[in-house]
């Protein structure tokens, strides 16, 4: 056992850090650090910067344009990105559909889609959840009817992040309902400009817009857009989910949040002293810091297991559960640190007309409430924490 990374790995870390420092605009870092959204243009620009460096897809094989780093490098890369408050590249292309295409797609699909996924030229969204199919995804009902040279798609998807910005959607659709629900599902790539697709925004309680409903009405999708075999979509989706669950611990961004809370609590007063010197507050923050340390070293231990040839299965659910719970505890402390100034809430879109008015309260409160409120979704999306616990109970504990 050894906690230290090799000197090569440490040098790699320094190299990544220097690159981010030199290339990521300060304005973007500031927004990410406050938990505010970053627009499509800025995200695409950052993706291009990483792409030019060859770093946009750490896990992809080299022959498809990836970095093909070993696991430890991927981990370190992600840590540096998190520490530096670099925005996450939208996962739907690089982390999700890309690996499905290079693993299960045909040569024509690889040539057509992969370069544009890497460059950020195409934005992707994920058509999984439906109004009646959330936790029970396999019950999905969006239908793709075989019409000879094309599929005719009818149905509805919901909670589709970035559907309003995306060029393409990868969809789970039902092509057969004769057998088990999982068996009749296919994985279809659909151009968002196809006639018959309607995107309706869903405004969330933080007044933000990132998720949508997507309606399909007699949408013609060429057969060539089917990935792999018909009826195998569930297998591909599970493969994709296993990709989604690496790097979900978000330890680096949580550490940044701890530092932010300390800085705010250093400026806020309680009975004339800095809040951070208050024993009760400090003890609560310390408890979350210790939780975070337990998460960090659990992630490293799992990483070491995979590095040694093991596979990561349902243990990743542990990371997702603890990461999201810690994230929510931290925004709770952020709210607590702000005291009375936790209440004001002007979403940016509402604030446009008032740009010339003085800011409300101290500058550091910007974004904190949005982050706290929207952060409630973290224990819901990507498989709710209740579902994650079911997975551990069944897959790890055999209950």
């Amino acid at each position: 056992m050894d906690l230290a990374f090799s000197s090569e790995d440490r040098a790699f870390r320094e190299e990544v850090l220097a690159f981010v420092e030199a290339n990521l605009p300060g304005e973007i870092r500031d927004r990410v650090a406050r938990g505010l959204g970053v627009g499509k243009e800025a995200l695409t620009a950052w993706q291009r910067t990483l792409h030019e460096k060859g770093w946009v897809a750490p896990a992809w094989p080299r022959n498809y344009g990836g970095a093909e780093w070993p696991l430890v490098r991927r981990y370190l890369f992600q840590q540096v990105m998190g520490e530096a408050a670099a925005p996450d590249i939208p996962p739907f292309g690089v982390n999700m559909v890309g690996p499905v295409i290079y693993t299960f797609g045909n040569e024509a699909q690889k040539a057509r889609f992969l370069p544009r996924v890497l460059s950020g030229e195409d934005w992707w969204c994920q058509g999984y959840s439906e109004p009646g199919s959330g936790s029970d995804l396999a019950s999905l009902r969006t239908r793709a009817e075989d019409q000879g040279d094309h599929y005719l798609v009818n149905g509805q998807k919901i909670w589709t992040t970035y559907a309003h910005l995306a060029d393409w959607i990868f969809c789970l659709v039902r092509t057969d309902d004769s057998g088990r629900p999982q068996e009749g599902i296919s994985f279809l790539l659909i151009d968002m400009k196809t006639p018959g697709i309607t995107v309706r925004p869903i405004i969330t309680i933080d007044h933000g817009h990132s998720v949508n409903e997507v309606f399909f009405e007699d949408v013609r999708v060429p057969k060539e857009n089917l990935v792999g075999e018909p009826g195998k979509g569930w297998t591909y989706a599970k493969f994709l989910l296993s990709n989604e669950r690496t790097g979900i611990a978000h330890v680096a961004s949580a550490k940044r949040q701890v530092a932010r809370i300390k800085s705010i609590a250093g400026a806020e007063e309680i009975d004339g002293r800095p809040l951070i010197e208050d024993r009760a507050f400090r003890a609560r923050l310390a408890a979350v810091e210790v939780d975070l340390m337990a998460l960090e070293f659990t992630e490293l231990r799992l990483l070491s297991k995979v590095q040694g040839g093991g596979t990561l299965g349902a243990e990743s659910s542990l990371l997702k559960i603890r990461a999201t719970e810690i994230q929510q505890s931290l925004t709770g402390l952020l709210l607590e640190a702000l005291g009375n100034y936790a209440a004001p809430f002007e979403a940016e879109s509402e604030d446009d007309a008032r740009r010339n008015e003085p800011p409300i309260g101290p500058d550091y409160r910007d974004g904190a409430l949005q982050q706290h409120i929207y952060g409630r979704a973290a224990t819901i999306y990507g498989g709710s924490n209740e579902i994650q616990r079911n997975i551990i109970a069944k897959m790890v504990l055999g209950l």
Partner: protein
Amino acid sequence: MDFEYSEEQTLLKDSLRRFIDGRYDFESRRKLLASSDGFSRDNWRQFAELGWLGVAFPEDSGGFAGSPVETMIIMEEFGRGLVVEPYLATVVLGGGLVEIAGSAAQKSEILEPMIAGELMLAFGHSEPQGRFNLADVRTTAEKDGDGYRLSGKKIVVYHAGVADRLIVSARTSGDVRDSDGITLFLVDPRADGVSIRDYRTVDGFRAGDITLEGVKVGADAVLGTVGGAHPAIEAVVDRAISALAAEAVGAMERANEITNDYLKSRKQFGVAIGKFQVLQHRMVDMYMHAEQAKSLSCMLAMKLDGPDRERALAAAATKARVGQAARFVGEQAVQLHGGMGMTEEYTVGHYMKRLTMIETLFGNVDHHLRRYAALAD
């Protein structure tokens, strides 16, 4: 010992319930939030006509001689409907301070039109450095002829923007955080030197930061005794805590009903999700939180007019316990709804936002646990 409502109190509750069910549905409320005041003046007039603005005040102040229990009943129903009219700011805090500290002349000048629905109030007390310490006042009142000049900043004053009269606290003597030396002043929001930066709050209300720059007020603007306002401030804040606890109880009960209905109707894996034991137990915890909060809310309402120390202990305990309950119930109501709970178009997220703020307003759990510990020993 009796926790039941009297016949009159039941009638009051029923009339509130009818109003909320009939006039305060989710869509109507959404329109109010988007309006320029952020609430409805028509509703406010209706509150006055129905006697809700005066029910808790003594008859000699133009009220109907109700008790804190009447305020509790009103606030509980307001909590169920997530009512955004300035009842807490105008009636409980503003009216309460005038009733506790005001002269006979001030009472008739302010309480009568307030009870008639013609005058709105807001109480500016918290300051940027003060957190929840009610004695932490840095705003100054300097003697100027017969009157005073006020300078300082008051933050997150709910409904400051619509108030016809402001009540602000300022220091006439002593050091920051001395409980002696604080004085209350009635201030015209249109007076020279007063500026209000108003904004929306996370729970759908409006609030504002008030800046006072050498604001000139006369001797008759003093509410209560010079330098002796601290006990009145503590008393009125405990009334506000009682009102907020009741509001939280109403909001939790409604959020629990909505969530319970959802657990029964939402099907996944071929069954109602309420059949899953993990969700049943969560819902049970939400129910138990609401029940315990209700018990303490009733206790506080009944102790509110009692001896100061007993009142303060009850308020501290209630706010601490209700704060924990409010956070748990609000957040779990969203969680059990899945994505639906996160949407602005659906009710339950709005309950979560208000419950989150109630935990913070007038002192969070931590503050009131400290306060309890300090008083209990």
